[in-house]
């Protein structure tokens, strides 16, 4: 049964690769990336052999506990139920859950994350192979730790299968991951800033962290060699018992949940989400076609997780810059003051991909004979409604925290210039290139369709085109570093040139749309894969 299920998983993997070249490319990229991570971690673990056992203990416990937590979080948020060998697909077959368990567990090892985890965990043995006792402890910890990782993923996804299948959860998870990315970037930078200021403090917090991690269920197995290294044999015994007990409990729990799923396969619950018939969005814009487009887009900014994740994504860089430059005593407050300009620069990209996000639903624009310019203008209104307050907030945050009020004119000029230009360029580019994007609510990590050449063109031309078109304003801002009064020129130049570009973007982009609506419809609705 084990061999059969592992073979099934391999066959499914091979068939999915045969379906599209991009999947193969994706798998190879994943393998290269996974291999690089494994190599880096193993080199790090070998390097730890040249340090003290105390440091090795703290580092390995924290790192491997993170690995276990990662398995839990990633399987819950990103991968969801492993759909290739979904247990409910076995519901029609005469098999018992306890026959399936070992095979499904082994199947979990097939794939980049599984193999990488085994290799990385094997590195634990290398780093602890210092005395026979430590080696023995590591050899015991290795399988316990790996099996705990796999069981955590399986048991949790089986337990929450019904929740994971619901669309609302997927939407939330999508935004959650984007925010997690922001906080990880921030956290990493902050830790870096602190580490450079006080190494002793860092060492102490690592030790504290290791203590907490080691006594949490995720760290029980990984703590065994660390206890032995400290000579705390009693604790080692306790951790061994706890880790073994955890494996047994998780195994039992998973078996129970699996048996339940075999008799009652999860079906996506028919949720019925009502919206409040709010009219403020409708009053915000005029009752014209362009106003209709704006209102519809604004609602999508709130209801479509792709847009929410987009906002989070665009905010990462400026927030990181502001926080790190101010948290770091050697930072540049001037740089923090200019951070809002970054959002201005990136907004155009969002406009450029807007039509692709609509997918085949855009037939409505085509068949209702909507003027291209109305389509462009409506989307810009909605984007402005979302990003203007966000940018103003970022602006205030940047200036109040940095105190660089002397830079107000050039920063305003640059931000406004980049934003207006970006929207103009994005409107034009968005009319030129579209691609079939995964629909809202689809798990973006299960789609290997990245949009291909049009997406790359759209992104590159928008971001660089904005910089080129906005060159006069950018030039003035750079000049103002040497001759400060020039900064006051940047403001009117940025605003005026920006509005001109925006105007051209709307009319010309609209004209392109009027010419190629049917071709556009074909481009966005091509089947993925």
């Amino acid at each position, binding site marked *: 049964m084990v061999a059969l299920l592992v073979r099934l998983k391999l066959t499914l993997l091979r068939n999915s690769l045969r379906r599209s070249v991009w999947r193969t490319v994706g798998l190879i990229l994943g393998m290269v990336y996974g291999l690089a991570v494994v190599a880096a971690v193993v080199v790090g673990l070998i390097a730890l052999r040249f340090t003290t056992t105390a440091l090795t203990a703290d580092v390995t416990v924290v790192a491997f506990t993170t690995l276990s937590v990662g398995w839990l979080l990633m399987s819950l948020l990103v991968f969801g139920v492993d759909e290739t060998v979904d247990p409910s697909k076995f519901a029609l077959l005469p098999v018992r859950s306890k026959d399936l368990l070992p095979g499904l567990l082994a199947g979990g090892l097939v794939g980049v994350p599984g193999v990488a985890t085994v290799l990385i965990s094997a590195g634990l043995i290398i780093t602890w192979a210092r005395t026979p006792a430590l080696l023995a402890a590591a050899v015991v910890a290795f399988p316990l730790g790996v099996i705990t990782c796999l069981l955590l993923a399986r048991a949790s996804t089986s337990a929450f299968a019904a929740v994971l299948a619901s669309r609302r959860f997927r939407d939330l998870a999508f935004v959650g991951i984007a925010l997690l990315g922001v906080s990880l970037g921030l956290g990493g930078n902050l830790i870096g800033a602190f580490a450079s200021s006080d190494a002793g403090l860092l060492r102490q917090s690592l030790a504290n962290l290791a203590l907490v991690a080691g006594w949490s269920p995720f760290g029980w197995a990984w703590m065994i060699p660390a206890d032995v290294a400290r000579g705390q044999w009693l604790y080692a015994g306790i951790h061994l018992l706890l880790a073994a007990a955890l494996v047994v409990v998780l195994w039992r729990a998973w078996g129970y949940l699996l048996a339940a799923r075999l008799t009652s396969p999860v079906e996506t619950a028919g949720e019925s989400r009502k919206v409040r018939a709010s009219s403020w969005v409708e009053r915000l814009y005029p009752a014209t076609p362009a106003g209709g487009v704006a209102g519809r887009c604004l609602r999508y900014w709130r209801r*479509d997780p792709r847009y929410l994740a987009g906002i989070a994504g665009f905010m990462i860089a400026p927030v990181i810059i502001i926080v790190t430059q101010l948290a770091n005593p050697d930072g540049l407050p001037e740089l923090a003051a200019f951070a809002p300009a970054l959002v201005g620069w990136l907004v155009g990209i969002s406009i450029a991909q807007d039509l692709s996000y609509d997918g085949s639903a855009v*037939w409505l624009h085509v068949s209702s004979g909507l003027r291209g310019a109305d389509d462009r203008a409506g989307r810009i209104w909605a984007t402005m409604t979302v990003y203007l307050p966000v940018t103003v907030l970022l602006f205030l945050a940047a200036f109040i925290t940095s105190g660089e009020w002397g830079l107000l004119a050039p920063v305003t000029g640059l931000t406004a210039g980049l934003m207006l230009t970006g929207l103009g360029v994005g409107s034009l580019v968005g009319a030129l290139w579209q691609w079939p994007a995964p629909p809202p609510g689809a798990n973006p990590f299960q789609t290997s369709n990245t949009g291909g050449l049009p997406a790359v063109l759209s992104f590159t031309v928008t971001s660089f085109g904005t910089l080129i078109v906005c060159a006069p304003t950018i030039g003035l801002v750079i000049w103002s570093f040497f001759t400060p009064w020039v900064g006051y020129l940047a403001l009117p130049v940025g605003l005026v040139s920006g509005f001109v570009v925006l105007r051209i973007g709307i009319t010309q982009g609209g004209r392109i749309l009027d010419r190629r609506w049917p071709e556009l419809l074909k481009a966005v609705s091509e089947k993925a894969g």
Partner: protein
Amino acid sequence: MTSALSLVGLTKSFGQKRAVDQLDLEVRRGCMFGLVGPNGAGKTTTLSMATGLLRPDAGRAEVLGHDVWTDPAAAKGLMGVLPDGVRLFDRLSGAELLRYVGLLRKVPLADIVTRSAELLEALSLTADRDTLVVEYSAGMTKKIGLACALIHAPRLLILDEPFEAVDPVSGEGIRSILRNYARGGGTVVMSSHVMELVESLCDELAVVAQGRVLAAGTLDEVRAGSTLQQRFLGLVGFTAAGEESLAWLRSSSDSS
């Protein structure tokens, strides 16, 4: 009097495959017109080209005298369209979607409000007006799509498989809406592969296969004394498994 819909020499190829081949069709005003054909006959492709969603390789499409491809604004303003197999802006509620279509179609705001309420009521969607369309069942999605096609009071309705996945009760509701609409001078062109439906609802029809019109005219003309089902099968070249081809089966059961 100009036709409600006039297709002349419409042609479209996808790669090697010729999906629609020199197709001609005239639909007179005030008519319920059925477009029937087997799967892959080119019905959806034809309707897409007639509604301005797909650019034809050759040929013309005119709606009440306005060319869809040279004067799209006028032609599209007269048409209400329900395509098949495309998404809607489904993160809007039913009421929001109707309002959106109304605004795109430049319907006065007061009319949008009253017409939406009436359409939702007629299609028994009032209880779900504030539910997101993505949560709708397939039948409900068809119905809200039909409401979207009607909100600007078009002169010509083009419906691709309007009854698919619609339950019998709602189906009867849609029928009466369409009959009233045609009685009021409107023209309906709908595709279907359910012969009984076309037979009970349409005045005229065309049988399409392999991108060509095989027969067109009033129901009686096309039926030519037979049932529509038999005539249709004959036209598309399906030779029913007759008595002889079943003979071996019968004889084997006899012999045993």
